[in-house]
């Protein structure tokens, strides 16, 4: 059973590393924070407006959502900047 685990973890790690090395397309990379906010927040819940939290609080929520919903670092950075009004 341990061998199965090791093989599974190795294949998983290799696959993820390989996929992670694929660069996002220009279309994806050029998306604005507003667009990413609409697309990603609405995946699970209604998208909150900018005035719901203070600027510093949006930074904390961004990290929390990275954990909760698996959004990428680039998405988080752009969405937080949009919600902070930058």
């Amino acid at each position, binding site marked *: 059973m341990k061998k199965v685990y090791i093989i599974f973890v190795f294949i998983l790690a290799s696959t993820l590393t390989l996929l992670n090395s694929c660069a996002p397309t220009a279309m994806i990379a050029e998306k604005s924070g507003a667009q990413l906010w609409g697309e990603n927040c609405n995946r699970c819940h209604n998208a*909150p407006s900018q005035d719901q939290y203070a600027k510093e609080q949006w930074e904390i929520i961004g990290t929390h959502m990275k954990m909760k919903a*698996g959004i990428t*670092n680039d998405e988080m950075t752009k969405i937080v900047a949009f919600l902070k009004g930058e």
Partner: protein
Amino acid sequence: MKNKILLFCIVTVFSATQLVAQTNNSGNTKLLITGHASVTAILDTGQSSFTDANFSAIFLYQLAPKLFVESEIEIETGDGVADIGLEHANLVWMVGKNVLFHAGRFIPHFGMYRGRLGEGFMNRFASNPVGFGDGGIGTMEAVGFGVQGGFAAGCSKFNYDGWVSNGPQLLTDAENTGQFDYEAYTDNNKNKAIGGRIGFLPLSNSSLEIGASFESTNKTGSQYSADESVGVIAYAVDLNYFHMIKAIKSTLRVQGEFKKQDVDKHDYLIPDDEFGGTYTFDNTAQTYYILASLRPGGVENKVLRNLEVALRYSSYKTPDGAPWAYYDTNGKNTDLTQTAFGLNYWLKWNCVAKLCYQMQDGVTDQVFIQLFYGF
């Protein structure tokens, strides 16, 4: 050895967060206290009562750009007393842009319902699908460590979560023999569970996510007991899709999840049997739910655009012979099914009033009324 690694990881992350907290006197530590509160009433032929009032406080600390702590304390009253529990206390270290290491008590991404779509204002209903709430299957909360993250690949995206935890604990009491405690705070043996989920978002607008999860452990019984070597492996596949239908100015959501749990064959003691007799059963259970909702959020009428209709169907196949199995009126082990209709009114993006009519095998039809506020 695994215990030592687990202990080392927890101590390392905790020490790092303590160090930052001690040296960070400039007020750079950021804190957000958020959470949610709800009150639920159930109406059926036997009752018309406010059954449950819950309050959860969520503490989010950004100690440094790469150090983060999230914790949730929940107070529930459904069992007649104020039941206070630590939902999670998760210490996070952002190792890289798309790699987060975390340790503590956390909600593993086993499927998408638990810890995400079934939580608070994301759940379109006041109840859980059968097999997904108390008495259901699949891991719910874990104590251990894990690695997770998300990244773009071409026009698609992936997210991943892998964890090592104490794992579920086998129950052997008369009513729950062969079931598991998925929320234990402490371990009952030296063995650890390994689990993970991969989420795939194939569409460039992130509107569709498909996930596959597993969790496996070789031992779930108490250490040195006859039940110790009972292993369990669980799988799940999930789906979450939303789409704005421009023709009717409405948002359609479709969600679903399937879970299966296979437990090792084992001879369980017959309760109160003076001769120490045993019995066994094929301990395999599976459950699924599918949900669809529609909200005309794009129409001009203020009342109409805050309304949402929802429909959910769920089914739970319990193992024949298990004391917690479902049997119909003919004594046959059949699938336990539930159908629910919902009408929700959104007071705010995270505050909703829910009205649900639920039909479930074995119980009378029920009406749920719930007010849920996120904050």
